[in-house]
Each structure stands twice: as structure tokens, then as C-alpha cells.
């Protein structure tokens, strides 16, 4: 027997066996679908966690960023001396430095008057430190007293802010201070903050009067065009001392991501969910394939008596496993796309479905089904034609 027909015949027999008993097929497909959806959701939460963790740093623009060494993540910075940042101006390649102030504040919903915590960013708006067309366009407005821009990707509990300001209701309170919302921008929530507000450094200190001007959270360093960023980074580190960290843009983004990946046990928790889903799916598929082999032992033994090889029978079982993987995964993918949409609407965190993720989950599911098939194949040993007569 040449290889191609062997595979074809085995796959065809598997398909007929699988589709003959509809309740069994549905049960097995649901098992794989369940596992696929669970894995997609776990990975979705994990990815969106990482993606949302960097929604702020990803918009920050500078050649180099200065942080206190004890800062674990941008949403909970350890403050440092403004003068430390200013020292960078002594470096010949440094064109400008800007401090940024970051703090959690209470924003009052204009309709319900309920206060809720969001992140307030304050900085010198001449610096264009946050790369956002709406912020840059409003930079001059923001220099006025007691004004701010509101992130429309914030959670809805803050109220329909853009609707409210279009109707002229634009004054609310941040940390108990009357603030006029002069416009909106889009950044996104994180697991640490449900919303964001951007304002000038002066307004920031009006909102947080206890914060000293000379204690800053994050330093932005702009270099002269054509400077060697790596060299400047090393120089600044030496200049500012042991207490500081100096990152380039990619390092800043990775730093924030790394916080969630390492310090927080999120990766483990979600990874555990993935493994559980795969184990449950595998047990279901194994059970069904095992029962299928058991119910057809005399048929398989007859094939062996006719001269079919053990390999052929193994192919039949493996083909069934692969069909189940394909069916369950296809349906699971469809359902997961719908659930991702729902999650985006409900928790306001992006749930992307890139091809890479689809391929990864498919690889998981295919492996799961193949393992179940490989286990069920052991049952074929009982198909002994000598015991058939």
C-alpha cells in the first residue's frame, strides 16, 4: 500500500466514524470548543493586561526617560529631585529636559457626583511629551488655569464626558478642585487606573497642592538631532548617580510590561487557566476516542485480519483527533471573537485577535487533541484478530 492512499483511506474512515454518531460528535466538538474558548479568553485577558499596561508609556515621546531606581511601574512612581534631572542639561547632547508629574486623583462624575480614581498627568505642555494629536492641538488651552483634558477611553463610570462638554457642562472636580474639561483625547485604561486626565504642570500642583514642585515622577530628555542615544544614556546614568534609571523608549515600554509579567502573578494565574482548559479538553477528547475504539474493537481486529497494519488503525484514531481539533477550534474561534468584542465593550480594554494568537491557540488545541489521540491509540492493542473468532 503506498502512503498517500493509506492516509486518505484512514482519514476517510475516521470521518465516517466520527460523523455517524451525532451526539458523540457534538459532545466531542463541544469539549474542544470549550478548551479553545477558555484558552482564547485567558490569553486575551493576559494580552490585554500587557497591552493596557503600556497604554500610557507607549504614547510618551522623548529620546531618554529618567526614573527613580525604586520605581516599579509608571502608575506608582517613586519621586525624585527635579535637580537630578536638571543635571542632564550639562551634557552637550541634551537639548531639553522636562519633568512629568503623575498621581492618582479623584474625579467627580458630573451627573452622579460620585468620585472615582483616575490617573492625572501634569507636564510642561511646550514639550509635547505625550504623542497625541488632540493633546498637542489643545496645548495652548491647557496652559490656562484649572483646565484639563479627559481620556474618552476611560471607564463609563466617570460619565459621558464628551457629551457633557458638548452641551456646555464642562466643569467638574478633581481632588475637590473645580476643573474645566476643555476637551478629550484617547489613551486607554489600565489595570491600575480606570481613566486618565492630562493637564499642565501648574494645574497639576493646583490639584495636588501637597505635591512639591521639586519632587518629580518621571523625567523626559530630548537630545540634539543626530546624537548617539546609547552614549548619552550611559553618560546621563553616570551624571545622575546610582539612584536613577535611564531608559530609551523601548526600554520604558518593556519596563512597564515587565512589571505585570514578573512582579504580579498574573502570568501564572492566566497560564494556569490555559493549562486547565487544555487538560479538561484533552480528557473529554480522550474519553470519546477511547470509547469509539472500544466500540469498534472487533471491526478494527477484522481489518487487521484482512492485512491492515497497526499504523493504519493508528492513523484512523489520530485523524479523528485532528478532525475534532479542526471542528472545535473553528467554532471556538468564532465564539471567542464574539466574546472578545463583548469584553472590549464591557471592560474597555482592547482585546486584539492577531493571526499569531490564532496560530498559537490552534497549535495548543492540535497538540491537545493529538495527545488525546495518542493515548486512545493504546486501546487499539486490544484489537487482536486472534480473539475475534
Amino acid at each position: 500500500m503506498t502512503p498517500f492512499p493509506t492516509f486518505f483511506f484512514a482519514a476517510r474512515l475516521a470521518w465516517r466514524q466520527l460523523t455517524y454518531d451525532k451526539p458523540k460528535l457534538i459532545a466531542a466538538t463541544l469539549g474542544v470548543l470549550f478548551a479553545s474558548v477558555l484558552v482564547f479568553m485567558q490569553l486575551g485577558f493576559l494580552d490585554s493586561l500587557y497591552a493596557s499596561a503600556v497604554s500610557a508609556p507607549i504614547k510618551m515621546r522623548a529620546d531618554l526617560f529618567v526614573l527613580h531606581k525604586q520605581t516599579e511601574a509608571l502608575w506608582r512612581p517613586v519621586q525624585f529631585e527635579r535637580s537630578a534631572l536638571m543635571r542632564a542639561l550639562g551634557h552637550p547632547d541634551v537639548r531639553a529636559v522636562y519633568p512629568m508629574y503623575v498621581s492618582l486623583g479623584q474625579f467627580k462624575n458630573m451627573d452622579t457626583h460620585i468620585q472615582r480614581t483616575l490617573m492625572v498627568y501634569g507636564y510642561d505642555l511646550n514639550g509635547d511629551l505625550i504623542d497625541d494629536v488632540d493633546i498637542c492641538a489643545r496645548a495652548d488651552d491647557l496652559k490656562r488655569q484649572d483646565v484639563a483634558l479627559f481620556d474618552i477611553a476611560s471607564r463609563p463610570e466617570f460619565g459621558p464626558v464628551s457629551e457633557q462638554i458638548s452641551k456646555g457642562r464642562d466643569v467638574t472636580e478633581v481632588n475637590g478642585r473645580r476643573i474645566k474639561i476643555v476637551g478629550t483625547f484617547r489613551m486607554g485604561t489600565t489595570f491600575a487606573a480606570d481613566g486618565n486626565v492630562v493637564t499642565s504642570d501648574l494645574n497639576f500642583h493646583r490639584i495636588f497642592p501637597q505635591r512639591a514642585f521639586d519632587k518629580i515622577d518621571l523625567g523626559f530628555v530630548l537630545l540634539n538631532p543626530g546624537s548617539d542615544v546609547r552614549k548619552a544614556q550611559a553618560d546621563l546614568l553616570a551624571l545622575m548617580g546610582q539612584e536613577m534609571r535611564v531608559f530609551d523608549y523601548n526600554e520604558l515600554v518593556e519596563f512597564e510590561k515587565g512589571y505585570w509579567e514578573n512582579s504580579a502573578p498574573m502570568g501564572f494565574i492566566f497560564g494556569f487557566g490555559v493549562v486547565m482548559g487544555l487538560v479538561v479538553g484533552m480528557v473529554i477528547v480522550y474519553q470519546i476516542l477511547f470509547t469509539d475504539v472500544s466500540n469498534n474493537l472487533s471491526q478494527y481486529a477484522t481489518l487487521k485480519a484482512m492485512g491492515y497494519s497497526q499504523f493504519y488503525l493508528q492513523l484512523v484514531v489520530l485523524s479523528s483527533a485532528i478532525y475534532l481539533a479542526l471542528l472545535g477550534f473553528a467554532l471556538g474561534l468564532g465564539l471567542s471573537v464574539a466574546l472578545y468584542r463583548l469584553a472590549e465593550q464591557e471592560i474597555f480594554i482592547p482585546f486584539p485577535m492577531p493571526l499569531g494568537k490564532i496560530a498559537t491557540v490552534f497549535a495548543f488545541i492540535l497538540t491537545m487533541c493529538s495527545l488525546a489521540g495518542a493515548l486512545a491509540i493504546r486501546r487499539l492493542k486490544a484489537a487482536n484478530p486472534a480473539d475475534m473468532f
Partner: protein
Amino acid sequence: MALVDVKGVSFAYGAGEFRRQVLNNVDFSVDRGEIVILTGPSGSGKTTLLTILGGLRLAVTGSAVVLGRELVNSDENVRMGVRRQIGYIFQQHNLFWPLTAVENVCMALELDDRLSEAERRQRAGEMLTEVGLADHLDRRPKQLSGGQRQRVAIARALVSRPKLVLADEPTASLDKASGHEAVNILKRLAKDYGATILLVTHDYRILDIADRIITLEDGAITPQSVPSS
């Protein structure tokens, strides 16, 4: 030369204190084109002998030449080669439930890659017509009677034109009429195709199809085995 030539074959199940001697020095042969019925009391070793001759069980003493190949102490490959030239009929039909009659019969032809899909179906259809199932080609086993299922199994065993057919109690699960019909079909086809049949049965109702009847008792062929009238 005989198609089946058995000399001094002994066989035991188990080992040590569980060892059970089932065949003792069995000698017999079957000639080309013969229909031989092997009968004997329950537990006398008929099935055991048939599985050895079918290359499904390995014997280690004596000599059993089947279709020109020695099966005693043979390789799995030799036995698989012999198996492909034998048609087996079991007490149970062992048909695949999801497959139609014609598809079940085709399973016996898929090992032969010289045939196209159309040729396989053609030959399977012809063989089912021979066993009187021309109107049931596309029915599944569930839609067939017990006798019809066994006739599909006979068609499956014969469609690849095996030189030797081994059958073990093929009528045990059938009523008298369908049992008789099944073995008569078997006999007619065997004669048409020149196949040799070795059939194990308890069923005295079908002894008349045999050219010769041999009896196994306590693991040995009894001397009074005589040609049937």
C-alpha cells in the same frame, strides 16, 4: 501440493501452572478447491487451530504451510502477507456501522492500490449482487437483517478473490434458513472462483456443503474423519 499442510502442530495457552495444552500433534491437509468442515466438541481447539492457520496466532512447534508459506515460528511480515490472501468470516459480521454495504466490501480492496476507486466500487457491487444484495448496496448494516449482514461479510471476505477462506461458526448467529442460504452462497462462490474453504462449525444443518469433514477432539484429529457422502 496441498493449500494447507499441517504436520505435528502443538499449541498451548499460558505458561507454568497456567499452561493449558490445546493442540497435540495435529496432522491434516486441505487441497486446492476443497471445502472442508472442521467440527468437534466445544473447547477441542478448533478456533485455536483456525487462528494459527490464518496467521493470526503464532505456533512454535510442528509445521503449518499455508499458501506455500511456513507459519510456524514465522515473522509478523510473513503472516501479514499470508493474511492478505485469506478471506475471513467470523461468527459476528464485524461490519462498520457508518459504512454502507458497498463501502464495507470496498474495505477489503483498499489494500490493493492497483484498483481505482471506481473499480473497487464496481467489484464490490458485483460481489454484493452475487450474494443477492443488488438492491441493498447503499444500505448500512443497521438497515439489513442478520442474514443480509452475514452475506455482506461473505462478500467482503471473497471480493479480493482469496485462494483460501477461513470461516468460524459463520451461521451461529443466524436462523436456519438464512444460515443455510449463507453457506450455500459461500459454497457456490468458492466453486466459481476456485477458492478453498476451511469452515469450523457445530451446526450439523450445514454439514452437507462439505467435501470432507474432519473432527478435532482433545486437540487432535480423530482417525474416523471420513469423506462426507
